[in-house]
């Protein structure tokens, strides 16, 4: 066992994962490596990429036992491609596949059966929820799942730690030569950013579409120069699960109070000024923060430089009102985001690496003034858990959480002090997924805690009259109301390895009972 820089005990070697590189600090581990390169290809005039069905794709490549198949998650809970590709693998008797899917949703439940039958024996992802996460937590796989960040996945693909044999790219629109975009067709999802590294670095790239357009397709997100095969199937996804209608601001008064306080923290930090750059999620209090920030920006008559991340209609409205000059988009959450990226030249589609990889010549999160993030648990060292629930079962993942936290000048975690009865602040989070050194402020309905590393910021918040408390004080308030929770017993087997964005190991997840 070794102890990493945030005090977590990690084995030196994890069976099925290999030797562990211990987390040493957010920017402490230099890359010291070359990028990996896929095989060089050639095509002749008259060659056709169009294949008749997924089985034909499997035979042509050919897909063999033990290969790594990759997928992107822009279709979220409406994805139909992963299940159809893996059903094809099962039908053809292929075993021991590794699935590298950037995020796993409840719709991917059939994966559990493929685990049990040995069709799929390894999983590499940045987020998982639903039956697959539950089954992994109970120990269905012999090999631990690798949990990465969105930037970390791009880094792993580009640097050769995640070697992809075949990338299956769900393509809302494609042409017969393999040009792809995400903005036309019945399953338009907007940005295809998470699929860019897969397309760039996989040995074989397959566009799976249900909307074939005449050559040449435009706009082009993923170009024909990287796509080997194009296959048209009946349906690649369910639009209802892909994008939502208008994402609404929460009506919960507690969450609104938290959001209002978070916006005041941003203002007190002096960030509501020309050039302001901002990232926030779509859920709960996060979107409400954008709502309050929008009012502040209007009142101060300032123009921000850009909004980043998963994009909602709310951020699109701010772009259209002139509150931001640009949107940098790696994933769209709603129909407004799709409409905007398709029509507004100031709405940019970028790759996962551009968004958040720590190992390139500079990613977008490094340009962020402020990010708003959630948390399932946070400890008194400000380490955050967004992977496991209080029962130890996996219910999420970092996604871009640790990437944005590391990059942003001001990282704010917004959370209710109690989630149901459970205090959000612990002595030690069950699973550390974002290191505390990258979290600056915790905002709850009972007060605001500032990371001791940011003494100057603490003074700014106090001067603005914000309810600043020590994180230990907030923890005591929660425990006074709810009582101190008893620890949940866990098994000893490691079911997932939590990699930081640089590939070092932050923590491991043990089997849930």
């Amino acid at each position, binding site marked *: 066992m070794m102890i990493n820089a945030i005090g977590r005990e990690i084995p030196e070697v994890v069976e099925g994962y290999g030797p562990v590189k211990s987390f040493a600090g957010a920017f402490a581990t230099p890359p010291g490596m070359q990028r990996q390169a896929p095989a060089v290809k050639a095509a002749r005039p008259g060659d056709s990429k169009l294949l008749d069905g997924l089985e034909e794709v499997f035979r042509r490549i050919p897909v063999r036992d033990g290969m790594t198949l990759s997928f992107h998650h822009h279709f979220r809970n409406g994805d139909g491609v992963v299940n159809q590709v893996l059903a094809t693998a099962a039908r053809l008797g292929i075993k021991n596949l590794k699935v590298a899917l950037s995020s796993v949703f409840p719709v991917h439940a059939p994966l559990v059966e493929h685990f049990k039958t040995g069709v799929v024996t390894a999983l590499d992802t940045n987020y998982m929820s639903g039956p697959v996460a539950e089954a992994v937590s109970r120990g269905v796989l012999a090999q631990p799942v690798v949990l990465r960040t969105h930037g970390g996945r791009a880094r792993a693909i580009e640097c050769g730690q995640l070697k992809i044999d075949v990338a299956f790219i769900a393509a809302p629109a494609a042409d017969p030569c393999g040009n792809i975009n995400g903005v036309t067709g019945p399953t338009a999802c907007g940005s295809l950013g998470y699929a860019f590294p897969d397309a760039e670095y996989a040995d074989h790239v397959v566009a799976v579409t249900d909307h074939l357009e005449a050559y040449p397709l435009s706009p082009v997100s993923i170009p024909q120069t990287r796509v080997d095969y194009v296959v048209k199937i009946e349906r690649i996804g369910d639009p209802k699960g892909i994008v939502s209608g208008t994402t609404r601001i929460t009506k919960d008064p507690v969450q609104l109070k938290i959001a209002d306080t978070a916006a005041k923290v941003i203002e007190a930090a002096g960030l509501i000024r020309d050039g302001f750059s901002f990232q926030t999620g779509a859920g709960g209090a996060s979107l409400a923060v954008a709502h309050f920030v929008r009012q502040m920006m209007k009142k101060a008559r300032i123009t921000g430089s850009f909004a980043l991340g998963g994009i909602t209609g709310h951020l699109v409205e701010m772009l259209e009102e002139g509150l931001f000059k640009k949107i940098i988009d790696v994933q769209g959450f709603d129909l407004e985001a799709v409409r905007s990226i398709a029509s507004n030249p100031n709405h940019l589609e970028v790759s996962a690496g551009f968004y958040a990889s720590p190992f390139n010549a500079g990613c977008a999160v490094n340009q962020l003034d402020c990010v708003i993030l959630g948390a399932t648990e946070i400890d008194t060292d400000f380490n955050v858990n967004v992977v496991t629930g*209080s029962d130890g079962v996996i219910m999420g993942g970092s996604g871009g959480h640790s990437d944005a936290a590391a990059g942003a000048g001001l990282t704010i975690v917004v959370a209710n002090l109690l*989630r*149901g*009865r*459970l205090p959000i602040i612990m002595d030690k989070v069950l699973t550390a997924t974002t290191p505390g050194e990258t979290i600056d402020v915790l905002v709850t309905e009972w007060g605001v805690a500032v990371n001791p590393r940011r003494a100057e910021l603490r003074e700014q918040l106090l001067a603005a009259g914000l309810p600043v408390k020590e994180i230990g004080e907030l923890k005591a308030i929660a425990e006074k*109301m709810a*009582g101190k*929770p*008893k620890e949940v017993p866990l098994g000893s087997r490691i079911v997932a390895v939590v990699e930081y964005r640089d590939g070092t190991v932050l923590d491991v997840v043990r089997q849930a009972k």
Partner: protein
Amino acid sequence: MKTAQAGTLESSDIMITLSPQEPGDGVKIDIDSNVLHQYGEAIQAVIASTLAEAGVKDVWVKAVDRGALDYTIKARLLTALDRARRAA
């Protein structure tokens, strides 16, 4: 005393059902909770002490908890008890 209920299945609430038992049967408490691991014993304790304070000896308590705090548990239990006694 008759069977009575109080509370809801909303988050942070608890639904308590009381059923009278024969004299001498004692107190039986069944708890279903989304925080059973962390707070099962605490919930059991607040229900038992509230019943003792109210002088209830023979009752079956079915508690379906969704993360209620102690005062909520106590309030729902006392309300259910009040309803059970009125119904008699």
